[in-house]
């Protein structure tokens, strides 16, 4: 390995001592330059996509994790530095996962004071007939629970935003997440999403609220470094309900690709941005969704019932079935452990 020269200086400013090796480029740079390039890149992304207009009220989806904490911090900084004239509000969703969300929400509450931004919390429990994620997992098990959480969270964020009278929510998706999505869509053959998954602003017939991802080109590692050196207050525990195994393999692949070539993550995003499907306006066009309202909850939906209400029906039906089963069943001794023991005792070998 070549030894570093004794007099090494920051590769960007050539004035200060290098402080870290930049994950995105491998350049040895000083802390000051790191903050500068990290923030400027996000600013460039915002300007290139014309994300905001002056006077806009925008919600920042805040989970208390590193991505959303950095997002809130950088948005506040850039808003002041470049005079975007945007009013930011923190918006959190309480999924009701004990040992994870309750702690991270405490972080968001501290962020609220640190950045002096208003905070709004919407909870699954209040929105969905008392169903929190802990209750859902207790009923359906640990498999596929991300489906419920995904649908519910999307709607919860929208409802929170609507409550605040806001049409634009920012999410903390970073470059690694984007690259992972591109690869996942290829590996799964999800052509419907493949050519649109890298768009910075997503707007669909199924959601009244515009979403955007200002951190889409920011490396996860740089977000961690930024949060660490800026001494930001964030919560770093992963969700206790682990994600599906297949996504894990895509994530591992991205990390390996990044080791082989540091630029791999943005290279994948670049590829994703050039993807375009062959049949545009053809068969897909005919199936274009017509936005209506859910008959039950009034949320925007192209079907009679919105996805969340369909899932809730399933959950409630399951709950009822379970109760009936319990009432019908024999006295306590014939269920559970006692029952199994009795069955075993009656066996002869």
């Amino acid at each position, binding site marked *: 390995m070549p030894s570093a020269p004794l007099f090494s200086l*920051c590769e960007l400013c050539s004035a200060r001592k290098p402080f870290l090796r930049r994950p995105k480029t491998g350049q040895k740079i000083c802390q000051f330059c790191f903050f500068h390039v990290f923030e400027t890149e996000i600013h460039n992304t915002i300007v290139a996509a014309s994300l905001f207009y002056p006077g806009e009220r925008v919600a920042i989806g805040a989970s208390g994790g590193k991505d959303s904490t950095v997002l809130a911090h950088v948005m506040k900084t850039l808003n002041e530095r470049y005079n975007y004239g945007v009013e930011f509000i923190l918006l959190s969703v309480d999924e009701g996962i004990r040992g994870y969300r309750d702690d991270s929400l405490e972080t968001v509450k501290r962020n609220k004071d640190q950045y002096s931004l208003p905070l709004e919390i919407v909870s699954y429990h209040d929105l969905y007939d008392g169903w929190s994620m802990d209750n859902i997992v207790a009923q359906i098990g640990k498999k596929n629970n991300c489906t419920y959480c995904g649908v519910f969270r999307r709607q919860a964020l929208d409802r929170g935003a609507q409550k605040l009278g806001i049409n634009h929510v920012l999410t903390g998706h970073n470059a690694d997440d984007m690259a992972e999505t591109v690869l996942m869509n290829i590996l799964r*053959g999800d052509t419907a999403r493949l050519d649109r998954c890298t768009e910075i602003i997503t707007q669909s017939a199924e959601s009244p609220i515009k979403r955007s991802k200002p951190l889409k080109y920011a490396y996860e590692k740089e977000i961690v470094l930024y949060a660490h050196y800026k001494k930001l207050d964030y919560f770093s525990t992963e969700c206790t309900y682990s994600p599906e195994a297949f996504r894990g393999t895509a994530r591992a692949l991205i990390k*390996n*690709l990044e080791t082989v*070539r540091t630029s791999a993550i*943005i*290279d994948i995003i*670049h590829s994703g941005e*050039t993807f375009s499907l062959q049949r*545009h306006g053809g068969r897909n066009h005919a199936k274009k969704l017509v936005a209506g309202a859910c008959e039950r909850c009034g949320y925007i939906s192209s079907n009679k019932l919105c996805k969340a209400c369909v899932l809730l029906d399933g959950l409630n039906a399951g709950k009822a079935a379970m109760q009936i089963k319990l009432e019908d069943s024999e006295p306590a001794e014939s269920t559970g452990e006692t029952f199994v023991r009795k069955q075993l005792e009656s066996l002869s070998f």
Partner: protein
Amino acid sequence: MTAQLCKRCSATESVVVSRKEPFCRSCFERYLRGKERKQMTPYKVTYPSRTSPPTQPARLLLALSLGSSSLALLEMLLEHLRDQMETHRGATGFTIVAVHVDCSPILSYNRDPKAVIQELQKEFSELCTFETVSIDEFLQDQELLGTFTHLDLETYSFSQCGELASRSVKSDILDKIRDRTAKQDFLFSIIHNLLVRSARSHNSSHILFGDSMSRLAERVLSLTSKGRGAAVSSSIADNIICKNGIAQLYPMREIMRAEAEAYVAMQDFSQYVITPTQRPPTILRMMTIDDLLVNYFTDIEAGFPSIVSTVVRTADKLKDTTAESNSVCALCGVKCLAEPERWLKEITVSKPALEGESLEPTETSAQHSDKPILCYGCLVATNSSSFTWPRSSKDEILRQYEL
């Protein structure tokens, strides 16, 4: 334990299990050849009507790398030709020229490729012609180098290469590139260009590539990972005109790598397979992106067996977004979208934080003045280093074209 019976004929013991199905030898051969013949349907023997002029069978160029997959394709094509001759009284729907680009000046193999080609020629001369092209011919061909030269010749610094005859791809191109993945990319590009040149000289309309479905899936992900996503569609689709009016065809696109290997072993073609003596690296940092993806698919196929075909089918649905573009990459020669460098600069700022600096991004107007156009993939591969693709010197061009 007794061996399972072949599921297709239910008469013979199976010798191979493929896609969870046990096959006997003859059913397996039939199964794979059927897949090859499906792709080769346009090359049936045709009988023109009396009034129409007589037609010649299509002349196809087979890119023969001497790996399992391309040798399996060679065997299948030879078998296909034998069948056609038998059924149609000596007539065939196509003829083949098998061309091997000899990379032995760069990589060492367990066998001398030239000797293998000679053996093949001796064995199958009545059905097919074989040819070896040295990789270094790339640097000796003015016209070929010319295709890589940007139109506006005056503005470029010409190559510092040595004399024409002493040029080698290894020392003049590959050794100048640091990045392993980029090295592999450029080698691939050179081989591809030599094949296109051969196809032109043999008047072939199509080049047949022996890439298996597994290999195509790896290509899709590797192109994506290298930022060459715009080229995915044109790289793996059939009948795409690659260059100079020559189209590409992948007859093995429905056959898995393991199947091709089993097939080659069955046909006693294993003797012709050449393998590099240097094993692929096992340390992550030493790997190329392609090495990594080969490993990824090998690992994941066990848990998710349909993934390879899913990836290839997904890529088939992509549109070639570069088709209408006028820009051509000065390094790899593919059509590219405009201004990848600007995109990269916006999101990878490399300006220092200076006190009292203007915080508004400054437009750099000199960006597209004297630099050749590079596609995003090549831009990343060369990482804005001083690497220049060797070009014909001005004198050489003058000597050739000035009257």
